[in-house]
């Protein structure tokens, strides 16, 4: 076609052949009711956060059935683990979930330490807690902005980014990067905190508390938001159990399960913090849950900074890059911003692990979307999708 032919009203493209969907659309359409429309949301859609694709069978504005289609960001981290040495896989863990990389760092480093029987010096444990909680706050802040953006409010995400940038500045001092951090090492952390880190963090805590009040006025109390999220997408404990949903979703449903408290790791047993449970199991409950968790994290950071012992931040004779895992199997879980992050390592004592299985909380959380979105309005379905706090790289791994 020549370049001059920029308007082609007489329809060269007007071929009578129907457009045939791809494998997943065909598969989905097979079970469709007559008279419904198959709407393909994504992989490039403003509210699917990255490259999630959701096939929805629509009856007017109502979603009859929905099915997420994954794999657009699949990078096969589990295969990479099988060809790298255990040390070399650390940077990968920071890239599984780019919003809360430190929880993945911790899950992996913790699993290796558990299997190899390495002990972490106390100062390093506190540094781990501080960095992990700061990172959790930044993850929740971004979720907050993105969720309100899903509901149509564009401004709050930019306010959330102000705080997030401050956290990134703080974490950059110790991790050297702003997004895909690889801070943890087997038997410690990669660097110590300095006076500037402590000062910035101490300044940040009251500042964020002030800002959270502003968030309440701007968004939480806003009647439009309230009516968009209250009573939308209830997820009972039973539903969570059947789908393996953990984290804020489960706690919002009213069950105070938190890996930090249930199966303690690090120095969490020494810290006093509440496990908030949500006011309700709907989108609003999950919304409030995450805001409460930000406050919990702030308390944890305050305590950890106050208790911070001196000493080395790395164990003596820490494993080098050529470190080999001993033979055995282990499962280690930490509480990430989205739920229980688990790493299952099976090693035959070789150069690289025999098999590493990454348990992504977002994967389980997303799997209940199909059931939760049944029979809701399209706008509600997208609110539910937003309230699950999805990070697609983590879901796809």
């Amino acid at each position, binding site marked *: 076609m020549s370049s001059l032919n920029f*308007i*082609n009203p007489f329809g060269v*493209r007007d071929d009578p052949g129907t457009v045939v969907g791809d494998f997943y659309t065909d598969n989905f359409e097979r079970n469709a009711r007559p008279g419904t429309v198959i709407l393909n949301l994504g992989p490039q859609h403003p509210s699917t956060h990255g490259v999630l694709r959701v096939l929805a069978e*629509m009856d007017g504005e109502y979603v009859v059935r929905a099915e997420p289609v994954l794999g657009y960001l699949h990078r096969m981290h589990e295969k990479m683990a099988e060809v790298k040495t255990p040390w070399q896989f650390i940077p990968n863990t920071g890239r599984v979930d780019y919003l809360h990389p430190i929880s993945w760092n911790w899950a992996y480093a913790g699993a290796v330490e558990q299997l190899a029987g390495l002990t972490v010096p106390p100062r390093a444990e506190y540094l781990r807690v501080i960095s992990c909680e700061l990172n959790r706050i930044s993850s929740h802040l971004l979720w907050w902005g993105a969720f309100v953006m899903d509901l149509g409010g564009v401004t709050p995400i930019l306010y959330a980014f102000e705080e997030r940038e401050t956290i990134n500045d703080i974490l950059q001092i110790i991790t050297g990067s702003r997004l895909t951090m690889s801070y943890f090492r087997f038997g410690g952390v990669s660097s110590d905190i300095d006076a500037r880190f402590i000062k910035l963090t101490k300044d940040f805590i009251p500042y964020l508390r002030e800002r959270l009040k502003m968030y309440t006025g701007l968004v939480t109390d806003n009647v*439009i938001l309230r009516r968009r999220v209250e009573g939308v997408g209830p997820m009972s404990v039973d539903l969570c159990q059947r789908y393996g949903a953990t984290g804020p979703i489960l706690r919002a449903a009213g069950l105070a399960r938190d890996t930090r408290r249930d199966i303690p790791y690090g120095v969490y047993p020494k810290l006093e913090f509440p496990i908030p449970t949500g006011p309700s199991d709907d989108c609003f409950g999950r919304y409030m849950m995450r805001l409460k968790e930000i406050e919990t994290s702030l308390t944890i950071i305050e305590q950890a900074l106050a208790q911070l012992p001196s000493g080395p931040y790395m164990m003596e004779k820490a494993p080098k890059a050529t470190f080999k895992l001993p033979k055995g199997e282990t499962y280690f879980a930490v509480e990430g911003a989205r739920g229980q992050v688990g790493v299952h390592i099976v090693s035959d004592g070789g150069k690289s692990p025999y098999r590493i299985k990454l348990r992504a909380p977002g994967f389980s959380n997303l799997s209940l979307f199909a059931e939760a979105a049944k029979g809701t309005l399209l706008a509600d379905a997208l609110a539910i999708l937003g309230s699950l706090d999805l990070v697609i790289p983590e879901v796809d791994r």
Partner: protein
Amino acid sequence: MDLSLLSFVQIIVAVLLIIGLMVGNAVVMVYVERKVAGFIQRRPGPYEVGPIGTVQPICDSMKLLGKQLFVPANIDWILFFLAPVLAFFPVLLLFLPIPFGPYLTGLGVGDGILLILAFAGFGVLSNILAGWSSNNKYGLLGAARAVSQSVAYEIPMIMALLAVVFMSGSLNLSEIVAQQGSWPWQWNIVVQPLAFFIYLVSLVGETNRAPFDLPEAESELTAGFHTEYSGMGFALFFLSEYANMLLVSFVCATFFLGGYKGPFLDGFWWTFAKAYAVMFFIVWIRWTFPRVRFDQLLNINWKWLLPLSIINLWLTAIIMKIIS
């Protein structure tokens, strides 16, 4: 009305001026909207092109002019190309009866507000044609939303305006302005606050602006009825959106805010200042609130605005009867 040669020439000149006004308004509003959005979000907004980014809207329109008109497969091409044109041109007529200044009226129609309300329905026609013809499911959903929203919000809008008409006893816009005084407490907003509020809410709904931008809800329908439009097609929709905004703001200024009358010196500057204040309000709430859900949008209208406007109308009628 005497349709002599003079009034014919007057209409031609007025239409030309109104086209200029519409285009100029779009240019200004694109800049204002982006700058306000930027300032609210604590960033500078357009910055690079021209002094503090003032040339940005011109560059944007140049870009839109130069873009390919992408034609999707299997469209109804007549309607597809008719829709943006249909969105743009009826708005021209609607500006004719508006009294910009004491003597500055395109067409001194006696029943000016009837003309405006009659032609305002064309906007939604173009939306439904665009959504229907572009062979896109998002477009179709957006078009369906546009129809029910527009039908719903026109009624309280008319009712609110009717309350003012009851008071002034005239459908002529110049007459309505003339009956208001120069100072803010002499404006209709003081005697008709409820009507003003209803009108303010329904004008946001009528112009499809956030938080009532359901037909083009970005996070749900990507772009709604104009999903498949690019280049000038999109630009015409854009232009007509801003023109519609300007129109309802002018009507608002005329009916409730005293039109061209203002403190110290009456004149067209007051009309423009008031209309742009209303425009700023629309922009401001767009960058503050989340979007309402579709059923809530209709609930607000049918369950609250419509009964309230009817009550308001009754009260106005009764009080007018008692006074006179």
